[in-house]
């Protein structure tokens, strides 16, 4: 196997287009970008998530200047780094061979092996997430970004967190989480299930915010780690969560829906942090006259969590599913019909967060 050194003149001279396999091509391209960026003297910013420290080196163009805003509260200094990502904006000769043929159409394509993770996502001008898992080096490339899509600003680099799972042992999942004290709940379900609404109702009641569309899970006992301080609120909830709406930084329509893009850090009373997961909650709006909480089979909670996670964060499908299944073992699961009075939901969820 061709070795790609992370720095030095040999790797920068290598023509990545002559590599035999996609894995070597990816490793070579990452190495070349890494060399280029190292020589340019671009500073590295480090961010800590649990015990995992991610360095991000970005020559940020106008389009992605806000890329790290939603996790800059994780910024640390003088901390040993676990992995390094280079962020590239615009055309790049070293990465061009990694862009799939236009004949792949608008579908995503992924290669995930023990050696590399590489995902091409054509949405919003395209994004390539490529990680050399052996070296914990990666590149996130926006080849034609004129403006980042709203979901990318809200959940920046989330596929890179997926790619770096073997190093971090923290799995990004599609779910929301909130906490009271040391313990909290992980809220699972498909799009439109009511995860954000339930989480923000709790935040308005003084709970700690752990995450909305994406959180990291891992550890024993199972913990949910905050990734981003963003939340995305659908238009039909604007009047029901007026306090949360004051944290809006923009209104987006590029996902096909009107959404308030929130920076939860802007809420004066909101705390952001991690929590031990005491319960998995699946919202089920059944039109009940009051809040109905019922035990839920663990298999159903796993299905709710894994279906959206495996599609939103592709690659390593079997391993990711097994990790989630293992993580959920021993965690109580409930369905919650929030009923018509949103303000009553947090009090009803308190005993679940406490593990009772």
């Amino acid at each position, binding site marked *: 196997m061709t070795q790609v050194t992370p720095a030095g003149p040999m790797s920068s001279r290598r023509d990545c287009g002559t590599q035999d396999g996609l894995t070597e091509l990816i490793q070579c391209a990452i190495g070349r970008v890494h060399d280029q960026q190292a020589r340019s003297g671009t500073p590295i910013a480090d961010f800590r998530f649990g015990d995992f420290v991610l360095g991000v080196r970005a020559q940020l163009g106008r389009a992605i200047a806000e890329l790290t805003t939603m996790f800059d509260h994780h910024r640390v200094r003088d901390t040993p780094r676990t992995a390094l990502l280079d962020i590239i904006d615009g055309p790049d000769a070293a990465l061009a061979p990694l862009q799939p043929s236009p004949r*792949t159409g608008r579908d995503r394509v992924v290669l995930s092996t023990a050696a590399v993770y590489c995902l091409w996502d054509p949405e919003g001008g395209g994004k390539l997430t490529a990680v050399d898992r052996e070296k914990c080096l990666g590149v996130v490339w926006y080849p034609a970004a004129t403006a980042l899509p709203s979901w990318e600003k809200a959940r920046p680099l989330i596929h890179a967190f997926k790619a770096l799972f073997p190093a971090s042992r923290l799995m990004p999942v599609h779910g929301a989480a909130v906490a009271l004290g040391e313990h909290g709940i992980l809220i699972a379900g498909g799009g439109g299930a009511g995860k954000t609404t339930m989480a923000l109702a709790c935040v308005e009641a003084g709970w700690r915010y752990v995450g909305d569309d994406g959180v990291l899970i891992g550890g024993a006992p199972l913990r949910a780690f905050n990734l981003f301080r963003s939340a995305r609120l659908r238009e039909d909830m604007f009047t029901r969560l007026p306090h949360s709406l004051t944290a809006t930084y923009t209104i987006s329509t590029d996902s096909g829906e009107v959404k308030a893009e929130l920076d939860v850090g802007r809420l004066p009373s909101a705390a952001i942090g991690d929590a031990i997961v005491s319960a998995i909650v699946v919202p089920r709006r059944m039109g009940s006259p009051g809040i109905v909480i019922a035990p839920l*089979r663990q298999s159903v909670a796993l299905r709710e969590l894994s279906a959206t996670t495996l599609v939103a964060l592709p690659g390593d499908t*079997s391993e990711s599913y097994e990790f989630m299944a293992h993580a959920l073992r021993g965690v109580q699961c409930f369905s919650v019909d929030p009923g018509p009075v949103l303000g009553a939901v947090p009090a009803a969820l308190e005993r679940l967060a406490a593990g009772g």
Partner: protein
Amino acid sequence: MHFILADPNRISARAFDDEIVIANFDTGLYYSLMGSAAAVWTGLMAGISVAVIAETLGPYQSEDVAGAVASFAARLETEGLIKPSEPYATGVWEPKAPADGWRAPEFESFSDMQELLLLDPVHDASDAGWPYVVAP
């Protein structure tokens, strides 16, 4: 006739209490097997033949258990979850008597993930290169 998991890298089967949950990552379908279905599945995965499974479950029912078990195994194979195999070393299989009496084995399937994949397809690549995808 013996069966094994069709593809351990693409099919996951896990026990949750008295339920077997199978996920087929190629089709995006999940399956839930309870009662006699879970008993047949655990038997098949322990390397027990269809005939011995039917014979073992026989005392719990009064119907054509052999036909029901064979038919169920065929359906699992059609769904791409299992494939025929040569006889192999058997594991321990101690099926419980169904609490609510015998019922022909059935599975319930859920298309949560399949529906999402249809909206937002993703293709796995190999080291040979990115796949060629023909636009629909």
